């Protein structure tokens, strides 16, 4: 199939339920049998598809990229005759992938049969019974009757009902508490004094400042250091009290 053709029949990656689904689509598009496909061809098509999607700046889930890497690795193994002997000893990853595809395909088909049942049974209505009148009050549940899931759902209702989805950016810690203490240890001889800003350095990252601050609080708590501040927001002057700082103590 030419590149133009492929572009013409491109389908949105959002339409697929993951890399296996996309692979099945590529195989079926060429009317190939899952068990007799030529790996190199399918791998090429898959990779091209992913590249196209990337060109369009589509957000591609990590799973797709993992599959791309797996296919590339398999393909490169096929090209390396030296590895052949090794491959025969261990299980052929290609065969494993084929089995996985067959399995996934079966579930996909069952899922679409369930979809049909759903359509029929959605249109079926049963009398509601006497559920309301005779059901035990939810409030009277004995201990042990509430499952973990109930609690989680209750919590989720409380926290997620109105709140926008939480955003959280995770930064790599720049400096650990122990490192801060080690640095302070070097900077501060016994009974010497030093300003906090001096110890942290100019233009220090927020996270670094916080780490140092926490380290100092800890040292003050242990009585190994004193800290003074002449007025609010002024620089903190530290003075070393204890000669030996054993953080494991």
């Amino acid at each position, binding site marked *: 199939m030419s590149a133009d053709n492929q572009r013409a029949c491109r389908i949105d990656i959002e339409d697929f339920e993951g890399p296996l689904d996309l692979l099945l689509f590529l195989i079926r598009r060429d009317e190939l049998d899952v068990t007799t496909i030529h790996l190199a061809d399918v791998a090429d098509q898959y990779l091209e598809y992913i590249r196209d999607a990337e060109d369009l700046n589509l957000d591609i889930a990590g799973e797709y990229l993992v599959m791309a890497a797996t296919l590339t690795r398999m393909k490169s193994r096929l090209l390396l005759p030296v590895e052949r002997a090794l491959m025969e000893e261990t299980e052929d990853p290609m065969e494993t992938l084929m089995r996985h595809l067959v399995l996934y395909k079966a*579930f996909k088909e069952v899922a679409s049969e369930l979809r049909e049942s759903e359509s029929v049974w959605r249109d079926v209505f049963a009398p509601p019974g006497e559920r309301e009148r005779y059901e035990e009050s939810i409030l009277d549940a004995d201990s042990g009757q509430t499952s973990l899931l109930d609690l989680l759902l209750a919590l989720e209702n409380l926290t997620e009902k109105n709140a926008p989805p939480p955003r959280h950016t995770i930064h790599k810690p720049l400096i650990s508490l122990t490192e801060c203490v080690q640095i302070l240890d070097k900077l501060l001889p016994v009974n010497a004094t030093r300003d906090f800003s001096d110890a942290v350095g100019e233009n220090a990252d927020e996270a670094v400042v916080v780490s140092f601050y926490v380290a100092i609080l800890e040292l003050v708590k242990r009585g190994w250091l004193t800290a003074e501040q002449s007025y609010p927001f002024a620089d903190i002057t530290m003075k070393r009290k204890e000669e030996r700082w054993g953080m494991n103590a």
Partner: protein
Amino acid sequence: MLDQLARQIEALLVATDSPVTLSRICELTGCGTESAEQAVLRIEAELLSGGHSIVVARLAGGYRIVTDPDLGFIVGQLFEGKRHSRLSRASLETLAVIAYRQPTTRAQIEAVRGVNSDSAMRTLLERDLIKIAGRQETPGRPLLYGTTSRFLEYFGLSDLEHLPRMDEMENLLKLSAEDIERMASELSGEESDQITQE
């Protein structure tokens, strides 16, 4: 005209809020299994010959009387806006894996589907189609999931044996059991708390 036993059973099948099993019918009416089954057939025949809008459904291991699916377009109007949306493809696939492999772990489900299935599983739990069925006694003690009787009712199944293509799927799963275990443990290797084996 229905006989006394059939009338009693019909009343039970109308008033119940979940399918009534055959043994429960026998217990409540004091009849034997066979006569209960025969009576259900008589009810069905009566409903059919009278051209009624209701039918006896064999669901989740029992019976209950429901409206004919042909009339869904009329009855559905009563519940406009209150009906659940159809399940997404992701949810249906996830549900299929759980149904045939239960009890199963999240890692196993994701191994088969090849994608993260968190949100699908959450939907299924919220809609009471799957439930937590214990923990697997392997390192990390991952949660095990299984289907509910609501699941059977939702898809009009009388029991798990009547899942589509049961024999075919059982064979396939037997063949791929090892693959699934291995893929699942590779997956959970990343999460470290879910190492799965049977």
